[in-house]
């Protein structure tokens, strides 16, 4: 934090709820940040499924219509629509996915849009003001401005969460806030600082494994930037002018674990799919997987997390315990179309 103290205090002062200085026409200290956020967050619509909602939020990250959002059921619908803050509607196409972070990049055919430069969230200090802007509960329709709320940055933590009954794949650090953002439609929305800088992407609504309560968190802007900088299969394909291989593939070893739940869940293999990479490498039912690609896999979820990080086509080592034997096998990471 290199800013002089005076400047910080001034910023804090501006944001204080002042009773006498309430200028009704000015809209308060957050007006500019709110305007910035509202002009860069889009409403997304697709089809819902079961308890999954068919609406969500996305943030514009380029002037030519690139939108980052969270992975969700709505993106699976044949016609995903993005509604811009001015009410214009565009069909959106998924051009990149990150299964581990559960985020996706969409593209709409538009130009000259306002968009977020990804600010640095590492400067955030607990207590700093944050503004959330999202299509929460799809309250706003068409050109109506989306919902905003104001709160503070609470801190950072490693996420250990589940989504309903399933483990949530994201393992990295997240930003925590006192803003309530674990609400329907908020995922994919923006957390901005008091100047309107994008610091985090509101994540999918998940519950903490420790407390079983909803977690109000966002993926840090750095994580979003890293995702944007990765080249996707689709982009690679486009670059080499080869036909796209459809949607991105995700790493697949062909191993089905014996996962009965409970507190301790060691990664025992229930079965191995014929002709899968694991089958070729010699993994068998009842093997206990101790490590994968150098990372210990004490539990089923740990194994899944490590597996999901693997790059398709790479050779990796897998250490298994079979009976009293320890064996190191080598397998080639396969890909599975989604």
């Amino acid at each position, binding site marked *: 934090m290199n800013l002089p103290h005076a400047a910080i*205090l001034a910023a804090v002062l501006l944001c204080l709820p002042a009773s006498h200085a309430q200028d009704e026409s000015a809209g308060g200290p957050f007006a500019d940040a709110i305007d910035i956020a509202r002009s860069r967050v889009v409403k997304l619509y697709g089809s819902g499924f079961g308890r999954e909602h068919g609406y969500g939020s996305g943030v514009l990250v380029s002037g030519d219509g690139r939108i980052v959002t969270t992975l969700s059921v709505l993106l699976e619908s044949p016609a995903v629509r993005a509604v811009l803050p001015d009410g214009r509607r565009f069909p959106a196409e998924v051009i990149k996915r990150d299964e581990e972070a559960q985020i996706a990049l969409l593209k709409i055919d538009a130009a000259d849009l306002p968009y977020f430069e990804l600010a640095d969230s590492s400067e955030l200090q607990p207590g700093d003001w944050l503004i959330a802007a999202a299509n929460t509960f799809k309250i706003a329709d068409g050109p109506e401005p989306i919902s905003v709320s104001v709160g503070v940055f609470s801190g950072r933590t490693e996420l250990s969460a589940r989504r309903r009954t399933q483990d949530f794949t994201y393992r990295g650090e997240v930003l925590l806030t006192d*803003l309530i953002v674990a609400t329907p439609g908020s995922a994919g929305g923006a957390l901005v600082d008091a100047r309107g800088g994008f610091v985090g992407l509101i994540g999918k609504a998940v519950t903490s494994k420790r407390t079983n309560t909803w977690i109000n968190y966002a993926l840090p802007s750095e994580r979003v930037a890293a995702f944007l900088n990765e080249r996707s299969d689709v982009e690679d394909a486009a670059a080499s002018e080869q036909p796209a291989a459809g949607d991105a593939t995700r790493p697949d070893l062909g191993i089905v674990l014996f996962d009965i739940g409970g507190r301790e869940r060691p990664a025992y293999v229930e079965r191995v799919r014929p002709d899968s990479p694991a089958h070729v490498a010699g993994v068998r039912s009842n093997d206990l997987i101790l490590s994968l690609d150098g990372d210990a896999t004490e539990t089923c979820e740990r194994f899944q997390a490590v597996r999901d990080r693997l790059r398709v086509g790479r050779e990796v080592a897998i250490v298994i315990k079979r009976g009293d034997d320890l064996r190191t096998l080598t397998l080639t990471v396969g890909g599975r179309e989604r």
Partner: protein
Amino acid sequence: MESFVEAGCLEKNAAKTGEEPRASARPARRIAACVTLFAFALAVPLVADADGDALAAVRADEQQRVEVFAQAAKAVVCVFADDRRGGGGSGVVIDPAGYGLTNFHVVQSFIGTRRGYGGLSDGRLYPLKVLGIDPGGDIVMFKLEGKERFDHAPLGDSDKLRVGQWVAAMGNPFLLAEDFTPTITLGVISGLRRYQEGRGNLLEYADCIQVSTSINPGNSGGPLFDMAGRVIGINGRASFEERGRVNVGLGYAVSVNQIRRFLPGLRAGRLLEHGTLGATVRLTGERLIIGSIQEFSSAERVGVELGDELLEVAGRRVRTPNDYNNIMAILPADWPVTLRLRRDGEPIELTTRLERLPLRMSLQYVPDIEHNHAELLGVLDRAASADITRGEEPWASAIFQGQVRSAGAGEGRAWTVFVGTYRATEPDENGLDPTLRDEWRVLTRPLLARPEPDLRWELLAGDEVDGRLVNVIERRLDDDRRVRWKFDWRTDELRQVVFGTADDPEVATWTPANRKEFDGLRWPFKWSRRTRTGDELTLEIESIEFVSPEPLAAPVESAAEEDGQ
């Protein structure tokens, strides 16, 4: 649609089965922010002196905020049903006489008896009586009794709100407050002009204020304050879905500017209905088009046509179906509304009155006529002290003299009319034809002397005259005609007197202007009368002789005489 749930009317037993612990944690989140700031402030004395001033400013602001809310809290009411089992909610007193607002769904359980209790921050319970109700807008007015003067909160202007500004909700979430001191929660405005569907025509939240402020069960009916302590809305609803019935940062308040139009009718103790144009719209490209028109509706009557492009309703630009729903749903039945349309490229302007949107509920709600008449006399008394001087005695009479002029005609002619009940000194009358003379007598009578209202008198719901909110007093005459006096809601000045029939409520309209003193009597001296057919004339008063001699016989108010027979 999502499952939106009314926030209020908490079941008392629900509160007893363990809702409290969750609730008590809520205010902590805002406090956390303040603590952070405070810690920040503490760290500052290490820095230069200039920051000391800033710190002092922070503390002064906080002090001011504390004082504003301490004052505002005195007007906040904890609303309870009369039997202590019907749950409760919150409310706010807006007038020193004890008039207050809460949600309809808060009092619904005791709407039969209209009696409940209101707890104030002085720790005492006061009897509460439900007056007018607006089930469509989820608002009712109540009156607290038992004190000469109640602390009350002023009403703000919800059209001036901005997204992001700080607001505070006060009330009794989870019915926590045993001593009736309200819970305060702070947040910002998250959205304006939100539309949230109701059920049937009930509890529709149109043009409402969306806040991040914690709104929990029990908050319903409580005030939303701006940072100057003005009421800008009545909290009544929140989005919960899958999250249990606790706040998730999305609360909705009925805007005070919507409520304002209903205030006269609420105070009169009436069952209020909302208005409808009887037309629907659809979005065609960027244009909002009239898509259907009901037979015999306001829209049809005034000449709206299918395919017209709707531009403005009641002075507000409408671009989407939600815009249209928002403006329509906040206007009362019979409300005058001006439409701006475009037809074949040409702009047109039409003015009509809205039809009633019938309430789809089985609720017989007859106004308490005694209360209604007390309010009616209150309106006349206030007008008498603010605008038009009247006689002391109930049989006060007056002789008016002046000039009458038809529109366009230069020459006026003199007129004299006697108004009153005592005929001994009745002068020769001249100059006004019988219709005019009759109307003049009827319209001046309650201005000259306090009437003794019978069942033909009623204080109606509010109306709008030249953009100003008015109280409306109606008197039905024997020949099926009715007269309506319209007094300004804020200044108590007489704005208009309208003669009509059941079929045509606006046959002739009298409008007073230019008050002056006549021998110490303040009275409007220039009147214009306009008929439905477009005839217009002006009546000028040159002198008023106020007479209240000893009556020869007991004064009898003769309806026949006043009705011009």
